[in-house]
C-alpha cells in the first residue's frame, strides 16, 4: 500500500486550475513519462506511459476515471495501470481552495501495486510515486503561470 499526500500552490484561479486538471494535453505534460493521453469518453482518460527510475523503466498503459466531481472544488481520479512488471490501482482525491491570488491543491493518493513490481520494487515504489506527484504539481504550476502556453 502506497499512501501520499501533499499540498501545492499554483498561480491561477480555482476555475482555471480545475479546467486545466481536466485538459488531456495539460495532464499529459504534467505526468512525467506520459507519451500519449486521450479522453476516450467524458471523464475517462487512456494513457501510454514510460515509468521508472533511471535504468529501471518500463512501458505501461493506464486509465484514469473521474468521479465524485464537485466543480470547481474537488474530484477523485481512480487510476488503473498495467505493464510487464505488474499492475497498479489507486485513487487520488484533489481538493482545491482559493489561496490569495492563486489556488492551493490538497492531494491525497492511495494505491496498491501487484506483480513483480511489488515483489522487488517495494523499496522504491513509494519514492517513485512521490517523485511523480512532485513533478506533476510543479509542472502544473509552471503551465498555469504561463497561460498562453497551456496548450489548447
Amino acid at each position, binding site marked *: 500500500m502506497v499512501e501520499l499526500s501533499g499540498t501545492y500552490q499554483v498561480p491561477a484561479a480555482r476555475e482555471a486550475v480545475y479546467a486545466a486538471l481536466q485538459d488531456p494535453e495539460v495532464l499529459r505534460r504534467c505526468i512525467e513519462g506520459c507519451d500519449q493521453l486521450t479522453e476516450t469518453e467524458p471523464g475517462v482518460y487512456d494513457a501510454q506511459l514510460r515509468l521508472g527510475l533511471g*535504468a529501471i523503466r518500463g512501458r505501461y498503459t493506464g486509465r484514469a476515471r473521474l468521479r465524485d466531481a464537485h466543480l470547481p472544488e474537488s474530484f477523485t481520479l481512480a487510476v488503473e495501470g498495467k505493464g510487464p512488471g505488474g499492475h497498479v490501482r489507486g485513487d487520488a482525491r484533489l481538493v482545491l481552495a482559493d489561496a490569495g491570488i492563486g489556488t492551493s491543491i490538497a492531494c491525497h493518493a492511495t494505491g496498491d501495486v501487484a506483480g*513483480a*513490481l511489488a515483489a522487488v520494487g517495494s523499496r522504491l515504489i*513509494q519514492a*517513485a510515486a512521490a517523485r511523480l506527484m512532485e513533478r506533476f504539481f510543479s509542472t502544473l504550476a509552471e503551465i498555469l503561470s504561463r497561460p498562453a502556453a497551456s496548450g489548447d
Partner: protein
Amino acid sequence: MISAPFDYHRPSSLAEALSLLARHGDDARVLAGGHSLVPAMKLRLAEPRVLVDLSRVAELRGISEKDGRIVIGAMTTHAELASSSFLAAKCPLLTETAPQIGDIQVRNKGTIGGSLAHADPAADWPPVALALDAEMEVAGPSGSRMIAAAGFFTDIMQTALRPGEVLRAIRVRPTGPSVAYVKTEQKASGFALCGVAVVVDRAANRVSVAITGIAATPFRASQVERALEGGPLTAERIGEAARVAAAGAQLLSDMHGSADYRAHLAQVNVRRAIVRASART
C-alpha cells in the same frame, strides 16, 4: 523470468562503447556488472532494446595512482576493491565498505561504477564517494569531464551523467586510517536501511559524514559535521552531534523501515561510525 528481446554489444574499447551509445540513444543501456539491471530485465521492470556491455573494456578496470589521486576504473569489481592491499593502506574506507556489499556473487560481478551510476538510494558506494569528496571522471561524445561527488547524485536513481556518457573512473585522495563505514542492512537484499561513511581528517580537524538509505539520495550530514568542527572528538560531543544526523532530510518510509526508524538508525550509526573512525589511528 525471461527478459524481453534485446540486441547485445560487447565493445573492446571506450571509444567503441561511446559510439554505440550515440548510435542507439535512449534505446541503449550500459551493462556493467549487471546485478541491478539484469534482474530488473528478467522481471521486465526494464526493457532496454540494446545493451552495451562494458566488461571487455580493459581501460575501465583497475586501480592506479596519478597526480596524488587514487584512480579506480569504473568497471573494477567490489571484490577487487575489497582485496586490494594498496587501497587498504591508502584509502581504507574503500576496503572496509566493499566486503559489506551484497553477497559474494554480487561482489564478484558488481562494479563500483555500476553502483554509482545506478544511484540506488540504499547503495553503499554513494556515501563513500561523498565522504571522500570523490571526483567522477566521465567520458562522453564531446570528451571527458569531471563531476564532484557532491553534485553527482541529483535525485532518486538519477545522476548528473548525461545521455551517451559513461562513468570512466572514480578519483579520491588518500586518507589516513581514521575512517569507518557502518550500516544496518535490509536482510533479504543486503541494501542499507541506513549506512554511514565517516572520514576523520586529523590534520584539518574535520569530520566528513555521509548517509545512505534514508532519503531519496545519499547526502552529507553537514549539521553533524559543523557540530564537531574544531574540537576534540569526545564521546559526549559525538553523541550530541549525532542527534542531528537526519535533521532536514526527507526520509524514506516503506515496509522495511518507517521514517522514524530510519532517523533513529541514522543517529545510532553516525555515532558508531564516528567513534569507530576516531579510534583508528
